[in-house]
């Protein structure tokens, strides 16, 4: 299912801290599943050495991929500077995405950079599962809310909080979530680890299912090198799971926070 290919940049919107890239695959590619990621070569030569794993923010058949990501270092910086017409080498789709057989009502919770893959998740739920998700988004400031328009274009009206109050209500996800939560909600979330931990607690307290998308630095990205593990628990049994293979999505109750 995962392939290696070079895709052309057809759109680039790069800010100081975040970037949006739309890439066109040269031929039809298999549809990624929400929260699956691609490994992008983030330089011209051996430095930066490792590929950068980025989750799909939007996908249109047969091969249009949108990535929204934070500019954190030299790799993401290089990617953010790729201009229209330039090519980027990709490997993917990889990883275990969200379990889309959601019995209850999907409640999408995104924090900061975690908002990106939820756009695709929303699109997928609407188109393929015919479910209309509730969407709750939080960020530090308005500029960090990339993807908001994309949700609107899908016909959704996310509830938004920003820490500085520059958009939506002033505050954190934890300020507004309890009021939004319903008895048959299933939480699907992506964002900073403290936010995910909070969601795992509130889900457990309310006996709700909660899936979280984690991230880790990766080398091989295919499950071979065991570099990207995160501690998980199965009842009492502790072990390490690979974020690139068993993940990136995990049941919140199985994560060792």
């Amino acid at each position, binding site marked *: *299912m995962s392939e290696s290919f070079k895709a052309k940049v057809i759109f680039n919107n790069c800010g100081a801290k975040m970037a949006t890239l739309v890439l066109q695959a040269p031929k039809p590619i298999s549809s990624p599943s929400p929260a699956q990621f691609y490994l992008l070569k983030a330089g011209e030569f*051996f*430095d930066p050495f490792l590929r950068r794993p980025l989750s799909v923010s939007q996908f249109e058949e047969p091969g249009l991929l949108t990535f929204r990501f934070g500019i954190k270092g030299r790799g993401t910086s290089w990617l953010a500077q790729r201009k229209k017409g330039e090519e980027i080498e990709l490997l993917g789709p990889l990883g275990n995405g969200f379990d889309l057989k959601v019995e209850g009502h999907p409640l999408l919770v995104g924090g900061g950079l975690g908002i990106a893959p939820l756009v695709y998740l929303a699109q997928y739920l609407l188109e393929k599962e015919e479910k209309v998700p509730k969407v709750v988004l939080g960020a530090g400031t308005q500029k960090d809310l990339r993807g908001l328009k994309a949700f609107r274009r899908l016909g959704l009206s996310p509830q938004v909080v920003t820490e500085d109050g520059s958009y939506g209500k002033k505050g954190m996800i934890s300020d507004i979530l309890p009021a939004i939560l319903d008895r048959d909600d299933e939480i699907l979330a992506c964002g900073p680890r403290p936010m995910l931990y909070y969601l795992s607690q509130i889900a457990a307290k309310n006996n709700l299912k909660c899936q979280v998308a984690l991230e880790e630095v990766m080398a091989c990205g*295919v*499950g*071979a*090198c*065991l570099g*990207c593990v995160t501690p998980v628990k199965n009842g009492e049994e502790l*072990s390490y799971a690979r974020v690139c293979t068993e993940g990136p999505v995990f049941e919140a109750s199985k994560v060792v926070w």
Partner: protein
Amino acid sequence: MDLTVNLGPLHLQNPVITASGTFGWGEEYASFFDPGSLGAVTVKGLTLKPKSGNPPPRLVETPAGLLNSVGLANPGVDKFVNEILPSFKKHYNVPVIANIAGDTVEEYVEIAEMLNGGKVAALELNLSCPNVAAGGMALGIDPFLTEKVTAKVRQKTSLPLIVKLTPNVTDITVIAKAAANGGADILSLINTLVGMDIDLEKQKPVFARKTAGLSGPAIRPIALASVFKVYEAVNLPLIGMGGIMDEKDALKFILAGATAIAVGSANFYDPYSCLKIIEGLNRYGRKEGISRISSLIGRAHQ
């Protein structure tokens, strides 16, 4: 070009081997190319009991390379012999080199005995893994212990015996000679170099074990020098590795004295690296009119 090579008792269809710890159990990369096209696959280091490995973070990128502190995470030799290896052999036809690591000399022997009569093509003694607190590192930097563990394993197995050398020593040729004296058939070098990184925000080492292993193109010149020196010191076939990214690197190692080469970190950079190296070697042979790759071994010494 005839890419076949004779690594002592081990005959390979080509000199391209995957390095331990970088290719999983061989199946993870199978969706990209048939592992059967490789000279051999070296699996992740096997220990007597399953090891869960070090807590994250296990990886840090460095200039033209990476540091890893995985900690020999593996399901144990039992599970390998009974489940993983038979399953692999059912689907793929390629020699499997079993890399083994013990906390004591006795454990190396015990693991080797469990692999006898199995379907592995060779044993590779990991005396140089710098990530394990006990054993491993201690054995490989000491010529006496190197010779001792090699000899003890040699006594208990007739499988081709590879000893993997660590570069974290004063003189790698001393260790190479000790392994040869102990009865090794083949030497593989180099393992990772000791390195570290510090987290500026936390003002502490990034890794729980403080130091970690450095690999990738950054270490290639050190690896190449090690192969060159060891070739002159011992009369054993060598597997050269350390930052090999393409066929040009592979050729340099062969000219330096390696009979075969192993590819590790390059797999992360490009999962098709091994395949491209094999194709590149063939192209080189055609272009230069060389009929056998083995004719190039050690030519840089002439």
